[in-house]
């Protein structure tokens, strides 16, 4: 148990610390693929440092909610990162929240972000909030369906159990999982505000969703949000790994496997980040009202995956 606690803390801290790195890695890959000279991989850390040092400038009419939100969001993401098994698989936190609760956590963070965005009452803020919720009301159930497919296979909604089933039982091919995987990729693209749904690198009012929400933030608040965003990306990648390529995650209580698991993790993350960057480079940003269609497709795929599970695998 105590080792469990330690492991849990270690993993969570690790996630929190490594998350910006992943972000940096993705940006670097993108730069390479687009033939730009890339910023150093540690650029995100520098940005955070700079932001933390700055004085916070907030609007006159900003309410306490506005200042409270970044901490809330950061905390939620930290918890999420703590729950998803990245290297080890017996985590004292994980009973606290299964996959459904995980979706709940993301939703909580999102709602707070959207509310904070509306707090100042600028045109962009409410615009961003609206678009964010629009994206999420399709992405969230789709994500849930992806999880359901996995849970139907594993007969459980507990991430460790799912991972255990998928990784440590005898190897089986689940066609449903492939559908789920595609759906999951589309969802995570949308949820992490990446191309083709959103573009993290722009402030064009026609396109921006996530950026529009955080326009009013500065300094430490902005830093926390940026960090949370990185964490979110990390968590989603970890989730994808745990669900679809879980091999290598250390089983319950075998500490010997940990270093290996760590290596495997890093490798998968590098690959995943590269893949994300690649896909972002080759695809173009969608018009906003194509986004619901995009996510609708994701939702459909997820449900389809579940049905296929019932057709072929039960």
């Amino acid at each position, binding site marked *: 148990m105590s080792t469990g606690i330690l492991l849990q803390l270690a993993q969570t801290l690790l996630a929190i610390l490594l998350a910006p790195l992943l972000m940096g890695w993705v940006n670097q890959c993108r730069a390479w693929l687009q033939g730009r000279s890339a910023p150093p991989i540690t650029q995100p850390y520098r940005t955070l440092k700079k932001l933390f040092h700055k004085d916070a400038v907030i609007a006159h009419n900003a309410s306490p909610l506005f200042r409270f939100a970044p901490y809330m969001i950061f*905390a939620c993401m930290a918890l999420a990162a703590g729950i998803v098994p990245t290297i080890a698989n017996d985590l004292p936190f994980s009973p606290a929240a299964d996959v459904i609760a995980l979706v709940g956590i993301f939703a909580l963070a999102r709602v707070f972000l959207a509310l904070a965005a509306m707090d100042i009452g600028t045109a962009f803020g409410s615009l961003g909030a*609206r678009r964010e919720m629009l994206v999420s009301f399709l992405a969230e159930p789709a994500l849930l369906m992806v999880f359901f497919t996995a849970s139907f296979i594993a007969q459980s909604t507990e991430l460790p159990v799912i991972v255990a089933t998928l990784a440590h039982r005898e190897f089986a091919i689940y066609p449903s999982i492939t559908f789920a995987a595609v759906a999951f990729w589309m969802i995570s693209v949308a949820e992490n505000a990446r191309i083709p749904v959103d573009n993290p690198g722009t402030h064009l009012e026609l396109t921006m969703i996530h950026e529009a929400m955080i326009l009013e933030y500065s300094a430490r608040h902005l830093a926390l949000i940026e960090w949370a965003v990185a964490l979110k990306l990390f968590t989603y990648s970890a989730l994808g790994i745990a669900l679809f390529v879980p091999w290598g995650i250390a089983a319950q209580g075998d500490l010997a496997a940990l270093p290996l698991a760590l290596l495997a993790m890093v490798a998968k993350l590098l690959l995943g980040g590269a893949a994300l960057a690649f896909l972002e480079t080759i695809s173009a940003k969608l018009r906003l009202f194509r986004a619901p269609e995009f996510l609708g497709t994701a939702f459909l795929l997820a449900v389809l995956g579940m049905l296929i599970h019932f057709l072929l695998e039960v």
Partner: protein
Amino acid sequence: MTNGFYSYFADPVQWAWAGVMFWLVLGFAALLLQGSQRLLIRLVFPLGALGALFIAGVGVAGLLLPASAVILPIGLPDLPFHLRLDALSAFFMVLLGGAAFGITVYAMGYFRNMAAGPLALLILWYHLFLGGMVTVMLADDAYAFMVAWEVMALSSYFLVTTDHDLPEIRHAGFLYLLIAHVGAVALLLCFGVLQGGHGDYTFDTMRLAELTPFWASAAYLLALFGFGAKAGIVPMHVWLPEAHPAAPSPVSALMSGVMLKTAIYGLLRVTFDLLNVQIGWWGTLALALGLITALYGVIFAAVQSDMKRLLAWSSIENVGVILAGFGLTLIFYTDGKGAMAALTLTAVLYHSINHAFFKGLLFLGTGAVLHATGERRMGKLGGLIRTMPWTAWLTLIGALAIAGLPPLNGFVSEWLLLQAFLLTPNLTQPYLNMVIPVAAASVALAAALAAYVVVKFYGVIFLGQPRDAALQHAHEASWPKRLGMLWLAAGCVLLGLFPAQVIGWLSPVVQLLTKQTLVNDGNWLMLAPVSAERASYAPLIFFAVVGVVLLLTFIWVRRVYHGRVRRSDPWDCGYPEQDARMQDSAEGFGQPIRQIFEVFMKVERETPDPFSRTPHYHGASLDKIWFILYEPIARLTGWLSEQAGRLQHGRIQWYLIYSFATLIFLLVFTTR
């Protein structure tokens, strides 16, 4: 029952009846106290609130003690009022009492400035309403049930039409009472079937009646129709978005939070208790109806621009979710999967009580806003979190709860329901476990849309810049109001944080209906309905972790860096001036949803002329069902009555011909 005085107060059911009587006395006392308005506010409402607390207490007692019954000396000669308090009634009494306490305390503040005369009447109806609802839950024979049911409807109608000088409120009240009455007649027929020819209308005989599947189904469908009309199930929902907003906010809170649940109670009572046979397709039907209702409700909630209407539509959504859960319970139950039925039923009950609390809280919040600003249109509100922080923060709790966000109560019931859906592979009918995942998907969709609605609701009303100068001096809610909201908010939090305990309290009810109890595999702080292996959720840990991380981050930031803050104008990509008109209006926020789901709506839009000096935009998304279902019915009756009117021709010879023809016809008819 032993003789002597104590026998009158021996059982919970008698305490409960005493509580009802207390309310009635209070109500009529109000008529006598018309002289002093202060007394009405300061004395009667608090007493009423205590009554609510007492009822809740009795409910708890009823959950712990065995069922008890009593026969009152009133009613029909062969059918005196039978009252019975079993676990099911007890649970709903807890729900009622708990919610009603907060609401009544709030009402103390809400009606503070009302003139004595109308106030006295309002108090009378208010307490009749409460008493009626409790009696519905206690009734153990058809007559008592129907009387209580209609008293509830009637008194709430009079409450809805408190401001009867506004025609639209009169219309709302009329529509409400009409649909309620039609539903009541359907229930009457349902009981007529249930009694199975014994000529005895006590629930005991109904339990014994052996109905053929056909008649059982008839009874079930009638009940579904009758109770559905009260619960606002699509397509009988049209009255709800009219009536709930029309009422004064505490009444809206009671209607949405509690009265709808009496319909759920009735449905459970009839289906699981009175009917001696259940059939699988009933559940499928209820599930389908529930999902349709849920999605329909939430979609329309998203496009409303009147805050109370929005809440009313979201009530429809929640009822839909509850009904879907009910249907799933029925499916499991008829499939012989007692344990799963137990889980699902737990979810249903849990969601019912949750909805009572957070919807009540939200309606009270809107009431406070309404009083402070005199404005119901969200397009004229905004930024109230600065002028009325108490209301704003308390409402935030309700909003997060209704959005089904952890660690609040809304999430727990949703979680349980989804867990139940995940159990469907064990069903024997193959087609069902194919279909039900899709059902799960739509429940999830509804939940996600609910989040959208909440952000719209809260963001537009409480955040942003005030859309109207007058809002600058909106005053904070008075203390009774705050206390009332505080109570309900506390309810939301506690129900969210201690699900294991709540489920423990629910178990007698579940036991009663499904002959099975839900075993919590987890410990006191962890909820694991089936097995810890399968699924678990520990809101306390969850809460603790989030809290701790939040705190640590805060301290860390302050320690390592600094907490300096500078105020300035909003940045907003450097646009020079930001006025309130630039924010999203309620319509604007709902626009994407409207665009996506336009098929369900009849959209009326008038966009301003580009050259007009005073541009104004009007958009309304109307319920299509009204136009494709209700208007034809109205037209048909109109046509029929026109035909009937032709008979009344005015010429006496014709009238003579009628008599003549009738006579001849009967002579022929009888001599055949």
